Structures are given as structure tokens and as C-alpha cells.
């Protein structure tokens, strides 16, 4: 081993190992299995009772309301068998743009394309290609997360906690909203989920509801358009990474973008999303297939 390698290895040897890592792994696996089964049963029961309804929801434990009308996009958000959720993510950076397009179906099939004009295009690139059922690369299966906002908040708290399936670093600021879970860790968890190409439209709408009700998140009523000029509900918050604004479509509650406050069309750090539902990985949405007005669309 070379000198640098020796120094690095020596340094890493100074860090204490996590306690009982294998036992933690077993608990993590068991929790994931248990939660997915419980949620699946709960969803099945709810569906059987026909109890899924729209309307305002109350985050009764926190006593917070979003103060916006909960919408289901007039039933447009359901992703049926054989349909694909199309997402186009356009990220503006100082050195260029990154564009990622994904088509994802609930059977785990789909397609990803990637175009990049920044200075380091390979690093961080997604796996591109067309994938058969079960083959679409996802970081985490979130298909069993509830789409009822109140139940989703419970789920996120369990998932985000230090011993949860997807714990977030404890440095995140903000008041503690549940045992071991701060509002800041929930901001981060929701941000991550909103970037998942396999987060279905109904889940995205529920994430908006949860997000808007968290302590420290405010609806900026002065902002009525997102940086791409589309009607918007703007949610503002600040965490370790500074102030940020997320933009949501008022009708479907889908995220349309995020960036620093006051970001314009091509500001560094601005991300713009386009979203729709199509029936093939070879097509992009048109007309009513878009879930909100598209911006800056290109092939």
C-alpha cells in the first residue's frame, strides 16, 4: 500500500465502529418487512371500506393545518396498471444544466434518460436505459407509503427516526415533532422522497400536505408563480443548508420546482420539474396528460 493509503487507513482505524451492526441490520430488515405488511393490510382495509376520500385533512397531533385546499387533481393522479409516471427534472448549475427523464410504472418497469452540460457529467448520473418489470433502479420501494397525509406523517416519523428504516442525520434543526425526530429531519426526508422517480403522484400530493403542515414551513402568499411562470403554492423553510422554497401546483399538489428564495428561470441551484402520466416509455406527455403546465420541455 502506498503512503497516502497507509495514512488514510490509519486515520479510519481511529474511528470507533458502530455498536452491534449486524443486530441493527436484522432489526432494520424486520422493521421494513413489518411496516410494509402492516401498511399493505391497512391500505387494503381502507380500500375495502371505501374510506378513501378527499377533503381537508387535519394533522391532529401537531394541530396544524395547511390552510390550502387539499386536491386530488380531479382524479388525475391515479397511476393505473400499464401507465407510467413521467418526470423530467431540470437542474440549473453554474456550469450548465442536468436533465433527467424517468418513466416509472408500478410494476417496477420504466426508462431513464440523462442529458448533461455541466463540468462533471458522469458523477452522480443515474443508470440510464429501459427496464423490465422489477428492473427500474430505485433507491427505496415507497409504494406502500400511505397517501393519507396523517398516516403518511406517522410513517415518515417512524421511517426517519434514528432507528427507522431510513434515518436522517440528527443534526437537522427544528423542534422535535416526535421522539427522536425533528422537523428538520422530516424536511430532508420529504425532499428526498419528492426526488424519487418512483414516488407516485398521489404520494407526492400527500407529501405536500405533510410538508405544508410541519413547524417552520410557511406558505409564501406573495409568491404566486414558480420560477418557470406557472401558478404555484410556495412553501418556504430554512435548515442547515439555508433557506429554500419549494413550489407546488395548486391543483394537483405536485412539486414543480425548488430553489433558493427569489430564484429565477436559470438560477444556480434551481430545479424545475415537469410531470405527466403516459402509457409508453416512448412517449412524453401531451395535452391533458400533463399534471401541470410543462416548462422548458425538450426532447
Amino acid at each position, binding site marked *: 500500500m502506498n503512503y497516502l493509503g497507509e495514512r488514510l487507513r490509519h486515520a479510519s482505524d481511529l*474511528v470507533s465502529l458502530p455498536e452491534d451492526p*449486524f443486530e441493527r441490520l436484522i432489526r432494520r430488515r424486520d422493521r421494513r418487512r413489518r411496516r410494509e405488511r402492516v401498511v399493505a393490510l391497512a391500505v387494503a382495509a381502507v380500500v375495502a371500506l371505501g374510506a378513501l376520500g378527499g377533503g381537508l385533512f387535519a394533522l391532529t397531533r401537531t394541530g396544524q393545518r395547511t390552510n390550502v385546499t387539499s386536491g386530488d387533481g380531479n382524479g388525475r393522479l391515479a397511476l393505473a396498471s400499464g401507465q407510467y409516471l413521467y418526470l423530467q427534472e431540470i437542474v440549473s448549475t453554474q456550469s450548465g444544466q442536468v436533465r433527467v427523464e424517468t418513466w416509472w410504472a408500478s410494476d417496477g418497469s420504466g426508462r431513464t434518460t440523462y442529458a448533461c452540460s455541466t463540468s462533471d457529467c458522469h458523477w452522480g448520473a443515474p443508470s440510464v436505459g429501459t427496464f423490465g418489470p422489477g428492473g427500474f433502479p430505485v433507491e427505496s420501494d415507497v409504494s406502500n407509503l400511505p397517501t393519507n397525509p396523517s398516516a403518511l406523517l406517522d410513517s415518515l416519523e417512524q421511517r426517519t427516526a434514528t432507528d427507522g428504516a431510513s434515518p436522517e442525520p440528527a443534526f437537522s434543526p427544528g423542534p422535535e415533532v416526535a421522539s427522536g425526530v425533528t422537523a428538520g429531519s422530516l424536511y430532508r426526508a420529504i425532499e428526498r422522497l419528492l426526488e424519487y422517480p418512483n414516488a407516485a403522484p398521489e404520494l407526492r400530493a400527500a407529501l405536500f400536505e405533510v410538508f405544508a403542515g410541519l413547524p417552520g414551513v410557511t406558505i409564501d402568499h406573495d409568491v404566486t408563480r414558480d420560477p418557470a411562470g406557472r401558478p404555484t403554492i410556495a412553501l418556504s423553510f430554512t435548515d442547515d443548508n439555508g433557506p429554500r422554497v419549494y413550489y407546488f401546483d395548486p391543483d394537483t399538489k405536485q412539486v414543480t420546482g425548488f430553489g433558493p428564495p427569489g430564484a429565477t428561470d436559470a438560477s444556480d441551484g434551481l430545479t424545475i420539474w415537469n410531470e405527466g402520466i403516459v402509457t409508453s416509455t416512448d412517449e412524453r406527455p401531451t395535452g391533458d396528460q400533463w399534471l401541470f403546465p410543462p416548462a422548458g420541455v425538450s426532447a
Partner: protein
Amino acid sequence: MTEAVLALDAPTDAVATPDFEAFFREHHERLFRALWLMTRNRHEAEEIAQEAFLRIWERWERVSAMPETGPAGYLYRTAVNVFRSRLRRARVAIRRAIGSLPPDDELAGVESREAVVRALAPLPPAQRAAIVLLDVLDLPSEQAAEVLGVKPVTLRVRATRGRAALREEMERHDELSG
């Protein structure tokens, strides 16, 4: 239903197969320490290692039979993918999560003793990963390149640049500390 759910529903119950547990115990420490160097955050390293092992476990029957790089190669590839994925989410400057993770207490302690660890900080994650895979894990460049999903020549370029930057940072530190 996705592959992950199918795998989780498989009748593996709460007991790991002996092979997997042995595999875990053999590789966990090495992977954790390598990830710590890449992320410079203990919690992040532990989280990535746990997620990578869980994904391996869910596919253990298939992964353990891999003829080429074997399960260890698949483990490192999975871990780096998780790392990259977390990094990709944070690629926008305002959300550069890895860079913005506050140094944990242990890192501060190690940094005070090891200039090389502090010198890692300003390196781009790609260079940091290349150095860790080649110089700490001692992977052959072809295998390290496969783990990172780049050509071997690209990997070597990144490692060369990273080492040069590391040496420069270390020399600067040595001068400052007299």
C-alpha cells in the same frame, strides 16, 4: 410489486443464513471505514453501509452465487451506488449534503491527529471515492472503475488528481503547523 418487496416477502424470517452473516462480519468494518473516509461523517457512513448490506441480503441467494467479482464486489458497487445516489440528490450547490454535513465529534478528533483526513475535505467526492477504492481498499483499477461505473482511465485520472491535491493540502498543513 417491486423486486425489493418480493425479496422482503421471501421466507427468510428473522434469522440470517450463516453465509450472509459471515459475509457481513467479514466485510462490514472495512466497508464502514472506507465509507467514513468518503463521506467524512460517521452516521452517513453507517447508514450507507446498512442500506448496502440490506440490499445484498434481500438478493443473497443470487448475489452469493455471482461468479465474477463475487458478493464483495457487488457489495462495494451497491454501497457506492447508494453513496452516489445520496450525492446526486444533493448535487445542487445549495443542497450539497455530504459537504454540508457537520463534522462529527470523532471526525474532529481524527482530524486533529491526521492531516490527511482534513486534506480530504476539499476534494470532489469522485476523487475521494477513487482514492479510497484504490489506495485504502486496494481494489485493482479495473474493479474500482467498475464499482464507480467509469472507465479505468477515468478512474486513474481522478485518483491522480486527487492524490496531487491531497499532497498539496498536506504540505500546506505541514507548513502552517511548522
